[in-house]
């Protein structure tokens, strides 16, 4: 029962990440997603403070999480951009400075308000064993939201990735869609936060895309295969975790296993690809020459 729930939640997280991950990587925003995954802790803290004071919301209510995601995306984007534009800091340093500072603030915030150091650790590590039915509900809403947004605005996102100039000429509000992508990324990080922790979301966002990229080159297929690889890793990860517990009495972190599997899939992909190249290499290059 719990295994089924874990599989479902992790797969939904994988679908969330698979649909927006390719756009993030193509827009060179992977490290920005890393910042987001750190700063949502502060976002959640702030949102919790607001929600609990104004309408008595709990820490994991959907409204709290939505506000948290919005706050985190706004804070991160504003600060990182602000440092580059107004304080004239180089980009890598401004990304690094913003997320370490905000994460430190977030950890302090959480520790002071909850008097609980473990919440910080748990936020970083994630814990698939505490998933409940409500997590399944919020994960499905998130997945639905991500998939439908990407489906509706596919053109705009695609143009934003490949040719900002063309997008603007065609009247696409690139800034708006850039922020929409950020917001979705923040939401996804928050949705995954309980299941896999803030840091492992990154593997879900980047890993499946890199693996898919070894084999296919068209964006729709990349999105499909990124999600599929993520789902495969999630299901296999939960099974492996169960197997280790049953046969070796070893309780391993499920989220961690899934991420390691994503890494291994990439390594396997590289080997398969290089094997294929050796076998068909000459034929392939000849065919490309003719083109």
């Amino acid at each position, binding site marked *: 029962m719990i295994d089924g729930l874990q599989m479902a939640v992790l797969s939904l997280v994988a679908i969330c990440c698979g649909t927006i991950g390719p756009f993030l990587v193509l827009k060179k925003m992977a490290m920005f997603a890393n910042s987001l995954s750190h700063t949502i802790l502060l976002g959640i803290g702030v949102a919790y403070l607001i929600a609990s004071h104004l309408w008595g919301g709990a820490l994991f209510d959907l409204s709290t999480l939505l506000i948290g995601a919005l706050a985190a995306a706004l804070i991160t984007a504003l600060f990182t951009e602000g440092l580059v534009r*107004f304080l004239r800091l180089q980009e890598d340093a401004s990304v690094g*400075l913003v997320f*370490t500072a905000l*994460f430190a603030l977030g*950890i302090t915030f959480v520790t002071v308000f909850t008097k609980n150091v473990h919440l910080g650790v748990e936020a970083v590590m994630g814990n698939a064993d505490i998933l409940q039915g409500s997590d399944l509900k919020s994960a499905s809403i998130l997945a639905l939201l991500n998939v439908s947004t990407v489906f509706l605005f596919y053109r705009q996102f695609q143009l934003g990735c490949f040719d900002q100039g063309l997008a603007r000429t065609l009247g696409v509000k690139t800034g708006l869609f850039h922020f929409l992508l950020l917001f979705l990324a923040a939401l996804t990080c928050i949705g995954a936060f309980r299941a896999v922790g803030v840091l492992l979301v990154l593997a879900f966002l980047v890993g499946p895309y890199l693996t898919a990229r070894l084999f296919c080159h068209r964006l729709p297929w990349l999105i499909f295969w990124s999600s599929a690889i993520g789902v495969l890793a999630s299901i296999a990860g939960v099974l492996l975790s169960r197997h280790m517990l049953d046969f070796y009495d070893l*309780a391993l972190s499920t989220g961690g296993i899934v*991420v*390691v599997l994503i890494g291994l899939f990439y390594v396997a992909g590289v080997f398969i690809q290089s094997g294929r190249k050796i076998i068909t290499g000459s034929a392939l290059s000849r065919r490309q020459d003719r083109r």
Partner: protein
Amino acid sequence: MSISFWEFFIHPVLRAPMWGCILMCLASSLIGVPIFLKKRSLLSESLSHAAYPGVIIGVSLFALLFPSGEEWVSIAVLIGAFISSLLGLKAIEWLEQKGKARSDAALSFVLSVFFGLGIVAASAMQSTLPVWHKQTQMLLFGQAATMSDLHIAIYGAMALLVSAFLFLTFRPLQASLFDRNYSISANLPVALLEKILFWLLLISLIVGIRSVGVVLMSGMVIAPVVAARQFSEKLQTVFILSGFFGALSGLLGNYISVIGSISLSLTLPTGPMIVLAASSIAVLSLLFAPKRGLVFRMLRVYAFRLRCLEENLLKAIWKKETAAFSDLKKDHQVSSMALKYALYRMKKEGWLIDQNKSFSLTDDGLQKGASLVRLHRLWELYLAEKLGVQGEHIHNTAEEMEHILTPEIEARLTDLLSDPTTDPHSQPIPKRRAR
């Protein structure tokens, strides 16, 4: 219970964490300088996370081999962290060069997969070696309080190693940072130097893990140099300042963390406190550094704008002889506040007399106005005659140049145009006044 500030440096329990934090932060903030100048700051983020599985596996092996040698476990932490960070570095290099992944994708992929591996290893350790697991969990956010004098010896030595290397290779390092191709052609061992630099980054990252923690270690590589860069353009000074800021944040962070736990009974983890101290210093420097800081830059911009406004007003009144406030406001399109302030300053300078809201110039003001008009018309003539520029452009360019032209340039222009009397629009050019 209250402790005097100096006791933090000598008290047998408190001194180890204090000196430990200072030395570790010194090392990471020094190595941060070349990394920052190479624009690879985010590498430190991935590498510090990549150290995590090594830490866990190192401690586990150590616990299995020497179950009673708890005092020396930090050696296992260091070796394990070094090996796994090095693997992380190799993986990133492979992904960027052979795997054709973009740099940011490679960094975040390696970061998360290594960290995932660490989490799996940690969960395995939790059930098999629960006591040791607790110790490793501390390393996520750093805990300085449990350090002993032995730790300072180890960490201090490594911090000194990093500093000594940077000190000894300063010249070739400087050359390779500023002009890589020149250094290669001058037969400097640039590739070796870069390799060693990355190794030193690894060392200072894993050394810092004890006090700042895996998750936030990169902050200590980035923040001090960001602050230091604001104050100087000389590499030596940036190094010294960065080291100073790093050590200062180590000191402050540890101090706040200890004070918080003693007098406020808050469990403030050391790592976040140190990083908060460092990033506060960085943000303050970004805002208030004398030359490059935002506040002073804005002040300089406003001072220049104000001067331009004053000079434009002088010119306008010089041409009309008297002008009403409302006319000035209409012609110059600035807020009433700015206009009032500019007029007030001009009155104080003694250039302007205010008679029933109508302004006229004093002798000083007339002189100043004439010289501005002279500069404007001289420049117009120069553009038209010597550069062959036609039409609208010359007026607009002259509007800007009149505020920047120096007396020396004015003299050269006068000579070049052989002391002209009229400008291209047949307006008279006021004579130059003897000073």
